[in-house]
Each structure stands twice: as C-alpha cells, then as structure tokens.
C-alpha cells in the first residue's frame, strides 16, 4: 500500500515536471514567442530590447531561465509579474484558491446530489413520462452555455427581479471571505453554484441513468431478483453500487479540471477573483509568470484529483484491490 502511494507520488511529480517544461517551452522558446519584444512594446529599438532582456533575465540560456523560474515558484516563492513589476505572483495565486475552491466544491455537492437523484429516478422509472421529462431537462442543462446562463441569472437576480421578494436577498457580485462573513459568503455563492452545477447535473444524471440501465441487464441482477430482494434494494445496493465506478471516474476528471481553472467562465461572469479569472487576466496581457504559476497549480490539482479517484476505486471495487 505504501509502495503504491510512493509510486503514485512519483508519477505525479513526473507529470508535473513534464507539464511545466512543455508550458515553459511554448511561451518562452517557440519561434516567434519573444517575451522581451512583447514587454518592450511595438517598434521598440534594439537597445531597449536588449535592456529589457537583461532586466527580466531573458538573456540567459533557456534552461537557466527555466530553473530560476521553478526555484522562484516552488522554493523562494518570490516570482514577480512581468506586467506589474514587483507584484508577487505566488501569494496572488494562493489568494485566489479559496475563491475557486468555494465555488467548485459547493457546485460539486449540488451536482453529485442532484445528478444521482435524477439518474436513479430516471432509471427506476425508465420509459415513463417522468424519465423522459428528466432526460429532456438534463439535455437542456447540458446545452446551456454557462456564460449565457450566468448572465441570465445575473440579469434576473441582480436587475430585473432584484427588488421582488424572490431575489432581494441576492448580494452584489463579488466574493466575501468565509472567515469574515460566512452568511455573505454563502449568499453570494448560491447563484454561481447553481449556474455551474446545472451543466453537470444534466450530464451526470444522464450518464448515471445509462450506466444503471446497463447494470440492470446484468446476470447478478437476475440473481438478486431470484433471492427475493425488493426492487429498491436491487437498484440501490446492486445496480447503483457497480455503476458508481464510472460516476467516480467522471467526477474526478471534472472536479480536478474545474479547480484547476476551468470554472473560468463562471468566475468571470460572477466577478469572482478565482484561479480561472486570474489566468484569464494574465493571458490578456501575456503575464508569463502568472500563467506558469497557475498552470503548475492546475496540473497539480488535476493530477491530485486523479490520484484520489484511484483511491476511491480501491474502496469501491474489490477487483482493483487484488491486482
């Protein structure tokens, strides 16, 4: 078990190393990607370019630049922005993490609960009008782009119906710290949570339904019926238990990607200063240190989430345990 964990840790480090090198090469070493000329601005003279190179350390060989950057991200933590000189990047990224985590964890709780509920109810009543209705609703949820849905939510809750009893509780956009103002934190995040979760509720509901219906065709379900178990027990203890394996895989991938910055659109629409928003802003003015740092952070979360999925697999599926 310990060996397996160490092995896993080694793999994680290897993947992150590969990602960091790739991203570095893309932004610093691909032909035409000259950070100095971007910083110096259009039509800068060769002297100015030279000075910029020297000042930002871009005149050194690539491998030195790479190692200096990695040292500044992981060891000294004093990497500074190219755009806002002196602005420390690592604390800036660390500041955004609670925002993104609050958003994504809340949404994940919603989508797991409602996704499972919809999947189970649809599978139990398959073929009925309820099943069809739920699947159509799920499809609508998947089809609505999150930025559009977010804007509509804002329009309704912040503007058109803000003064009615329905949405008067909605605070203005922006993030409030959980430790300073728990109530404000909760209230500001409700609508972003719902917005982000709707897509995944539809997706997970549909995936779970399909996987449950497939499981219900299995021989062991017939055995369970022959044992005289109730339909509810067969569905929940036998079919759902085996279907959860695919559900967890999907969840690990989506959760890791969202925490790593894929919640960008939701963050932008609701003005939440999360990792996605930070990366988005950095990409606007090509602030390479921030991009490198957020990419490292994102890859860390994706890899972590995958490692966690593997652990959950071991809990869920005894067949994995043996090998």
């Amino acid at each position: 078990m310990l060996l397996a964990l160490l092995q896993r840790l080694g793999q994680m480090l290897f993947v992150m190393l590969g990602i960091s090198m790739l991203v570095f090469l893309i932004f610093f070493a691909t032909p035409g990607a000259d950070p100095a000329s971007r910083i110096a601005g259009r039509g800068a003279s060769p002297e100015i370019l030279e000075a910029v190179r020297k000042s930002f350390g871009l005149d050194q060989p690539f491998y030195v630049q790479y190692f200096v950057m990695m040292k500044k991200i992981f060891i000294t933590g004093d990497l500074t922005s190219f755009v806002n000189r002196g602005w420390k990047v690592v604390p800036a990224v660390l500041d955004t993490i609670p925002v993104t985590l609050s958003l994504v964890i809340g949404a994940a709780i919603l989508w797991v609960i409602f996704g499972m509920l919809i999947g189970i109810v649809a599978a139990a009543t398959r073929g009925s009008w309820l099943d069809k209705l739920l699947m159509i609703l799920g499809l609508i949820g998947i089809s609505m782009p999150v930025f559009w849905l977010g804007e509509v939510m804002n329009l309704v809750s912040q503007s058109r119906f803000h003064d009615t009893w329905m949405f008067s509780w909605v605070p203005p956009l922006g993030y409030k710290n959980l430790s300073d103002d728990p109530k404000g934190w909760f209230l500001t995040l409700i609508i972003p949570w719902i917005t982000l979760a709707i897509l995944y509720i539809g997706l997970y509901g549909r995936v779970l339904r399909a996987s449950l219906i497939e499981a219900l065709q299995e021989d062991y379900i017939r055995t369970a019926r022959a044992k005289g178990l109730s339909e509810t027990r067969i569905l929940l203890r036998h079919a759902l238990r085996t279907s959860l394996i695919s559900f967890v895989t999907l969840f690990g991938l989506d959760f890791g990607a969202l925490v790593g910055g894929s919640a960008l659109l939701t963050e932008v629409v609701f003005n939440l200063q999360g990792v996605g928003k930070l990366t988005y802003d950095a990409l606007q003015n090509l602030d390479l240190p921030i991009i490198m740092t957020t990419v490292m952070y994102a890859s860390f979360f994706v890899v972590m989430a995958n490692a966690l999925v593997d652990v959950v697999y071991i809990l869920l599926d005894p067949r994995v345990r043996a090998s």
Partner: protein
Amino acid sequence: MLSVRDLRVSFRTEQGLMQAIDGVSFDVAESEILGVVGESGSGKTVSLLAVMGLINDPNAIIEGSIKYRGRELVGLPAGEMRKLRGLEIAMIFQDPMTALTPVYTIGWQIAEQILAHEKISRAAARQRAIDLLAEVNIPNPQEAVDRYPHQLSGGMRQRAVIAMALSCNPALLVADEPTTALDVTVQAQILDLVRKLQRIHKSAVVFITHDMGVIAEIADRVLVMYGGRVVESGTKRDLFLNPQHPYTRALLDSIPPLEGKRPRRLRSIPGSPPSLLDRFKGCSFAPRCPLRFEKCAAKPDLVGTSHAAACFLAVTQ
C-alpha cells in the same frame, strides 16, 4: 407441489407476437428431481423463469396456470411473489462467473438473502452463511465467507451460488444449466453436490440442461422440450429405454455409446430448431422428422400419463 398447466409465454416484438412457450404442462412432486432437456431456444429456461416470476420484460404475456402448493402464481402481486422467491423457490443460474454481484463478498450476498426473508441478526446470518459454505464443500469456509467472487474459481462460485439458493431451505430448487459453464471434473462434483443436498434438504429440483448425460446422471423424471412445447415426458427409465418421440430418439442417438462398435460419425439432427415467429402449424418437429407423414400437419397432443409423448406414432401407457 408444482403444477403447471397450459403455460403460454409470448413476447411482443416488432415482427409480431413471438410465442416462446406454447402450452406447456408438467408437474413436480415433492423432493423429486425433474430433468428438463432440449436444445437452445426450446423454451426450457423461459418456462422456468415464468415459474419464478422472473420475466419482467414489459412486452411479455404470460398465460395459463402455475400452481405452487395450491397457490396460483400467474398474476400473483409482485410483493407476494418476492416473498416466495428465495424463500420457497430458489434458483441456480448457468454462469457462476456473472451470477454474483462483483463488489460484495459471497458471505455478504448469502446473508443478504437470509436477512431478506428471516428476522435474525447479522451475526447469525453470517454464521449461517459459513455453515452453508461448509455444506457445499467450500474449503475453509471461515475465510471463504469474506472472499469476493473474483477471488474464487468457477466451481467455487457455483458452490457459493448453490449455498445461497439453499440458504432459506427452499422446497423447490430450479437449476438452470448449472454445470454448462464448468469443466467436466467440476461438473461431476456439482452434480454430486446437488444430489446430496437434495437428499438432505428434501427439496424438489427442476434441473434444466441440454446434456442427456447429465439427465441420465441426476433426474428421476424427464421432460423433453422442443419448440416451446413438451414433446415427451416420463421416468428416466422410460425415456432412455423406450423413447417414443422421434426427437427424443434423435437426442439419444447423438450421445456416443460406451459399449459396442464405435460409430464412424455421431448422428446429428438435420435442420435447426423452428423460428418462434412463424411456427409450423402442426407438429413443430415435423420439418426435421425422418418419420413425417400426412397426420403431422395437425398438432399432436401429449398422450399418456406416466409416460407421455406428443407424436402420432407414439405407443405410451
């Protein structure tokens, strides 16, 4: 104890009504072993699934009468049927590899069935599971009870399935080709086990198979099915020594003889089983029958009492 009369099972399909079972009648007496034999598609499994109430295809139509100890099972509410299943009527399936839920230990699965029917504690149910595993000759039952299905061989899994079926001491055990997916040495052990348990528990057993050798080994009485009908029924002795239906005779001819001259080739039955969609109006075996004559255009009735055959040429008592 079990009396099936004129059972008909049909499925609505896109090509029309598919008659899988066409008027099957048979009886099972207390603690006897009834062998049901026939080719794939002859309806042997479907008719027993109907007895178990396990046909839950919404397009299935089940007609006729299935009486278990005087109780009519056709049209019995699902909740009532569930109470009988597993408690009084249990079933063993063909493929032990897929018949157990992969994510639970076999002990848990056996205890689950006991707990579904009896009010006893978890610990007591577990102890019963261990005793049952010992009874079906699983070595080291104390340890085996916590094993997952994938950790056991096919023969051991089938023993676990049998232990599960026996857990509530059922009066009727339906075994659907329990030896087909196993290798030959294990087959013999499983057959011995079923016979031993049948003697101890005094359960009646309906043993479905397509293997005449297995029938010879285990059955008291035999039912031969073809094309969704019973074509011949009788004691094992009647059937093997004095087969009346040409189909039974053909089945027996396809077994290699142990004594006498070895045939150059085993005799097989020409043709294939009838399509269930457009059934031949008369005797369903007629298209493949070497003895076919004019009368076969009409459907023969099953004639006889202890030894009965559905053939115009049959001589039965």
